[in-house]
């Protein structure tokens, strides 16, 4: 059973963002890359995460990047912040995935794929806003929330879905009144993540368009990017392809642009 109490319990258990991360993000926000790198280096797990992240093939660096200050220097302010937020979200991921066939490495790959392609989209849209760059980091949180809430209900969910085409987001909404993206927004609030990022994420659910046109357009791009990413072999095999409903009508009018940006034949 998934009740409101279970959701509240999940939110309560989310720790506040660690102090080092807060300070790193604040310094990055002020454009102080060197100082931010010095602070970030004190957290060994964060340093290791950043090194792994930026050396993934999708980031496309020719030489291995080893040093945090070098990483921040290459990425610049917005993408460095994005990388730190990705690390924060990864702290919520379970040690052992049960609902989805993921592991630490594949989840980090998913974060990297989304972040790198989001950057391509923002370049295409001529957007360099830090908060909009960071918004993508919240998207994988919806997968973590699904895992956390549904992992004990695996069998029930599978049986339900064997007779009815129903996604996890809809099941959660009908059972508790909240959907995955509402819960991600609660996490964002707890971690003082900018409200605009939350608003874009809500629009990216695909079934509740924003009244703000610019946020809605970003929501469309993010929704399509999610399904472009979840159509990759490793994520289909991780059973992520249909965890939420793809709203094809919502993204129809940006598809041609999207296929150009992603170089889809």
């Amino acid at each position: 059973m998934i009740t409101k109490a279970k959701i509240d319990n999940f939110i309560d258990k989310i720790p506040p963002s660690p102090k080092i991360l807060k300070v790193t993000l604040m310094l990055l926000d002020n454009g102080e890359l060197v100082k931010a790198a010095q602070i970030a280096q004190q957290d060994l797990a964060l340093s290791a995460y950043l090194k792994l992240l930026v050396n993934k093939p999708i980031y496309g660096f020719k030489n291995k990047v080893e040093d945090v200050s070098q990483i921040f220097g290459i990425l610049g302010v917005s993408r460095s912040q994005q990388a730190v937020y990705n690390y924060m979200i990864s702290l919520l991921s379970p040690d052992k995935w049960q609902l989805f066939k993921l592991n630490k490495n594949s989840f980090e790959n998913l974060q990297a794929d989304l972040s790198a392609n989001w950057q391509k989209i923002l370049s295409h849209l001529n957007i360099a806003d830090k908060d909009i760059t960071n918004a993508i980091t919240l998207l994988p949180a919806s997968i973590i929330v699904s895992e956390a809430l549904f992992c004990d209900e695996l069998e029930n969910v599978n049986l339900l879905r064997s007779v009815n085409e129903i996604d996890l987001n809809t099941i959660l909404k009908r059972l508790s009144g909240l959907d995955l993206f509402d819960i991600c927004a609660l996490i964002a609030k707890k971690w003082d993540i900018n409200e605009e990022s939350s608003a874009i994420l809500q629009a990216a659910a695909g079934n509740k368009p924003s009244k703000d046109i610019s946020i809605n357009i970003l929501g469309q791009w993010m929704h399509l990017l999610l399904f472009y990413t979840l159509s990759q072999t490793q994520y289909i095999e991780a059973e992520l392809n249909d965890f939420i409903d793809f709203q094809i009508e919502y993204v129809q009018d940006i598809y041609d642009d999207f296929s150009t940006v992603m170089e889809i034949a």
Partner: protein
Amino acid sequence: MRAVVRNGVGVFTPQGFLDGNNSASFLSIEDIQATTKLNADMILVSLKKVIFFNRNGLDAFVKMFIKVRLAHHTTVGFCDYDTKKYDAINKFYKNELNFCLFRTQEIASLFAASFKNKNKNILLYSDDKSQTAAMAIELHDNGHNPLIAQTLEEFNTKSKAKEAYDIIINETYLGQMGQKVATRVTGNAIIYTVSSFLDAEIGNTFNIAYHNNSLNVGFRLFIFDAYKVVSMNVHALNFFSKLSSSAAEYNATICFVGLTFEKTPITFKETLEDSGIMFFQQMDDILKNKELLDELGASSAASVKSKRVITKGIVTELPNFIDATVGTIEMMTNAKAVKEAAQVNKIKIGDKKDKIASSIGFYGDIDGMIILVFPHDIAKKACELLIGEKTDDTEMILDTLAELVNIVGGKVKTLLFEANIKVDITLPRTYQDLDSLLEVVQDKKGVQVDLAFDNDKFLFFLTR
């Protein structure tokens, strides 16, 4: 990825992008094997949530179509596409389009023999005249009223008057249709649909395991809808004679409806009558004649000569059955269940008012039947999760209840499998009023467990 099966139609719904790199990931070998075992009347791949596909992306599904059709004569194809996608599929498979294309799932269901709603007014257009004729014949045979638009202009004009038609069909293509013997349940009778030429192939297309288990769980009237049969040969004659003999052991009756003997020797009719098979001109001659239905056994399913008793094997597995039922209803209603009483006896239902029921049979290493009696309100609440909205439409609630019981059956199957007991499940049956349920089970002994969900009473009965 697995197909969602409703009313004998299995539908795959891939999402996003479908190309040569990922299509094999959508369908593993196990998925294909599971699909061939489904025994559905129709297997479809919905393209409504696919924004991009190429030929390589569709090929994995087309290969599955071939395997499924070879195994069970199932109708296979794609559905839920727009004009652009329809044109693309036609371009990719120009001279090798041996599967069906249905613009929507609703259109596909019109061609499924197990589709319950008949008598639809349908506007039909295809630029291929042979396709138009094939579709019109199928629709007419399935009890609908197709109106053919001869030209695209005529179609465009007529399709503007949307209210004049229940369904409008265009951009649809009938590839090789399945010739499986479709099954549907009406009240306490099971109706099999047979068509064209009946020969030795009937032994492959008729699901004998399903038939035998329907006998086991209490069905006593089996009707062959034979309006579309052209003729039968001696192999089919032998098949039906044997079927009738085995049915006689259960006091069951087999009937043929609508079979003509223009191209079938009239001596075949005499042979079949000698083996106990009855013949009727119209389906309504049986289904609308309550006295005849009683006489034929459709409302006396419990009158088995040797009454089957509940066994120790089934009682031992009772916790599994209860867990499956409680877990499912708890999930669907988000309410906690409390077990109030359990006893071995004949079914006892206190207040029959505002209650509906559903049953599902299981067979294999052990066999029996699960009966669930729901207060109307619990049924409504449980169905809200599947329907997504509140409804008072009794037919919709009963249909959804059947799905819910199907989930319980599926869960029982899984739990028993974990205990190394292999079973299959029958189609679920629903009862709008409890008198019709009692006609079937009132003399059977079984295990009754009374449960309460919040304050609503709910009854579970396990019998054979």
